[in-house]
């Protein structure tokens, strides 16, 4: 649903379209620190503008979870120049669309409009970067909207509830333990002052990345960016804190039953490094490992558990390397009717043991890397694909070179590196296992 607020992209998994080549990106910065990236694409006479703020749910103040996401909603509530409703009306009059989303590390606002509307959407984004006007009359109903969003995404869905609990239990201390949408009780207490506090801390040109993808050239984008964002002043920026994990001494195990559950499911998270935290040198190897282990119909877990073993209906692995703080390596499986969860778990563990003992073979590494590199080509096949990839990398502190070199770095990962990363990460005491059961079978 194209709602002008918030899709919580929590963890983009290994099978998502990968980062890709150079996208013919041109990049420059304004004097006030705003970073600008232009990604030319002349297929349609349109542009997608994205403003990425380098502040997300992991930057929520303690006890105020959901702040970043709540502010994302409230950014559509108007400024002195553009009263409530104006923003959406101005964009849709020309056939444009706007939306926004919040993750752990960033908050993103985007518009797709005709190329001659680029100046307009830049004016609007520059205006609300510092000019947001909030009061209880708009804030209070929007808090109710966020609570409905939480009920839809999480509270009405037992598997989402267990995933939330599992993540909170895996991370004993790291910021990622708190759900991006916020805990219900804390959302209920968020008010106008909290939103404005987060806004003043983080929303400024020197903490933002402007990406323009589509039918525009760098000279035009530079001129319009100078005109619209240039007058905004840089301000002092708080440090982004990502808490570390203490040593884990014991594996965590959660079991949840619900009458809303049709069939059991099993999921395990292992603490994992990211491109920015922990043993960052393992991140590329872990991306390939997730593809080999659980990235589709030709993956080890799918073949062993679903195709050959006949134990599972599904089996997969997911890993997101693009986070500032620590990440997790996830394995999930759903047993076939009549197969006990314990039996499934043993079969998964047998595959993991085989992996850490024997490593991976050259053929499966090559196939996985080829699939991932092809995904990087397909990422060009839309207006927003390249912008999403570039933004997600830059917003966590990677560079355009990192984006450009991703296919090569994936292709250079060796079987030995994958085996070493698997041995470093797939350690039981660094894991949290969650089992979801129908009410009657517990």
């Amino acid at each position, binding site marked *: *649903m194209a709602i002008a607020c918030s899709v919580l992209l929590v963890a983009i998994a290994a099978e998502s379209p990968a980062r890709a080549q150079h996208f013919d990106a041109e990049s420059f910065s304004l004097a006030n620190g705003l970073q600008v990236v232009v990604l030319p694409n*002349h297929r349609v006479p349109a542009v997608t503008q994205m403003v990425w703020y380098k502040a997300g749910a992991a930057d929520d103040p303690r006890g105020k979870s959901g702040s970043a996401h709540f502010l994302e909603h409230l950014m559509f509530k108007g400024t002195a120049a553009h009263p409530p409703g104006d923003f*959406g009306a101005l964009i849709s*009059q020309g056939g*444009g*669309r706007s939306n926004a989303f919040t993750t752990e590390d960033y908050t993103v606002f985007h518009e797709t409009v005709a190329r001659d509307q680029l100046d307009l959407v830049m004016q609007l984004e520059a205006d609300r970067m510092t000019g947001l006007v909030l009061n209880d009359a708009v804030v209070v109903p929007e808090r109710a909207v966020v609570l409905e969003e939480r009920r*839809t995404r999480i509270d009405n869905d037992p598997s989402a509830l267990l995933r939330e609990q599992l993540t909170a239990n895996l991370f004993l201390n790291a910021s990622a333990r708190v759900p991006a949408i916020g805990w219900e009780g804390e959302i209920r207490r968020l008010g106008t002052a909290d939103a404005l506090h987060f806004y003043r801390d983080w929303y400024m040109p020197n903490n933002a990345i402007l990406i323009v993808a589509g039918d525009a050239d760098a000279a035009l984008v530079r001129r319009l960016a100078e005109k619209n964002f240039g007058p905004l002043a840089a301000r002092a920026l708080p440090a982004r804190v990502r808490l570390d994990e203490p040593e884990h001494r014991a594996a965590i195990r959660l079991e949840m039953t619900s009458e809303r559950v049709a069939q059991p499911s099993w999921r395990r998270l292992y603490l994992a490094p990211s491109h920015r935290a922990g043993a960052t040198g393992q991140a590329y190897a872990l991306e390939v490992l997730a593809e080999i282990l659980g990235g589709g119909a030709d993956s080890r877990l799918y073949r062993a558990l679903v195709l050959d073993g006949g134990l599972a209906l599904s089996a997969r692995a997911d890993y997101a390397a693009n986070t500032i703080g620590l990440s997790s390596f996830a394995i999930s499986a759903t047993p076939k009717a009549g197969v006990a969860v314990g039996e499934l778990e043993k079969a998964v563990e047998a595959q993991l043991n085989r992996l850490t003992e024997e490593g991976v073979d050259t053929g499966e590494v090559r196939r996985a890397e080829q699939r991932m590199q092809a995904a990087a*080509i397909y990422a060009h096949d839309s*207006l927003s694909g390249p912008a999403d990839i570039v933004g997600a990398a830059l917003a966590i502190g990677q560079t355009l070179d990192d984006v450009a070199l991703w296919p090569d770095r994936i292709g250079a990962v060796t079987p030995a590196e994958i085996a070493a990363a698997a041995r470093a990460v797939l350690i039981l005491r660094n894991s949290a296992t969650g089992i979801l059961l129908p009410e009657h079978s517990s």
Partner: protein
Amino acid sequence: MSRRPVTRMVMLIGAALVGLSALPAAAMPIGQVTGASGVAAWLVEDHSLPVVTLAFSFAGGAALDPAGKEGTASMAAALLDEGAGSYDSTAYQRRLGELAGELEFAAGEDELSGSLRMLSRNLTETADLLRVALKEPRFAEDAVERIRADTIAMLARQARNPRSLAGRLWMRDAFEDHPYGKDSDGTPASVAAITRADLADFVARHVHQKDLVVSAVGDITAAELSGLLDRVFGSLPPGDQSKDDGAEIAEARPGDAGALVVSRTPVPQSAVSFGEAGPKRDDPDWYAAYVVNDILGGGGFRGRLMKEIREKRGLAYGVSTALVPYRHAGLIFGSIATENSRVAESIALIRAEWQRMREDGPSEAELRDAKAYLAGSFPFTLDSTRRIAGVLVQMQTDKLGIDYLDRRASLIEGVTLDEARRVARRLFDPARLSFAVVGDPAGLESTRPPREAPH
């Protein structure tokens, strides 16, 4: 990997999107290509990326599933890429992965459709995998049993998912015994009854050249496409020229005369589906209905429902309505989710807005804004080979004409205020607007018991 059989609600939403975004106005030359075999396709060449998408649709879908074997079309669609020709399931998927092909099949009520996105350097080899999937699907026993188990598990999951349950309840009540009222994924019992012969029979009945619609978009020339059409589709049986797959299904006017049914279940938020009869795609009032629907239930923050329910009162994260055109019926259909204690308020507001639109129609400003948005937004969405290929197939299925993209904006802009008001009165009738609610709503009782799901 097996595609999950497409659910009724997914199909509804898919159909709604296609119906809603009833096509563009960008200057995009569309060619017509016919192979030596007689198979034809529409082509948009774009050599900016080494990528090609081939999309196709065969007439006849889930609505034709034999009684007691509901789910056959969906299950067949899920099995076409699970082993074909000389490949077993594993070998097929491995080969597809090596070639970096992205293949999808989906069974709708009225058609079996699919798409194949491929790298142009692997064009022939990847297309050969599609050819064998269509021509020589194996339906091997292990794959059939695996997909059967997967489907039954999915049905069990959906039966506990408030949103999909509300959609199913609504469809069942609106269409009763008509095929559109049956779940296109079947029931656990009907899925259990489907045999390999049923699946092979589905392919034999529908996968043929007659009523096949094809499009290609991307890094491919007309000459290359001509050869590719013969290669992929040229050896399919011609099909019976005298037969029109799906024409035998009865016309249906969905409607439940303003009923409200509640299925009680302990969740914090009630999921609600609502709607009534709407226009089919070839209805002369289609464009007026399309515009008026957007004014009432448009996505983003454009629609009246969104303003009244979300913006003013915070009652829901989203609420929208869409025209859903099937071959033999049309719907205007929407959904919303609100916490149990306030869902009655949401429903009252929807009814009131339905009544207000019926009585007064849109204002001149609303009409102007909606037309500008609907005419202007569509071309921007034609940014991927997959998206364009899908649109080209839909244009052919709906018989809109190859110049439709050039005419679309003026068709929308031509809707007058008088016409919009007349169509609003025709389209919106609170006395016929029915609701299905799944949750534990306060202050809402069924006007009659929900119809039992077949088992």
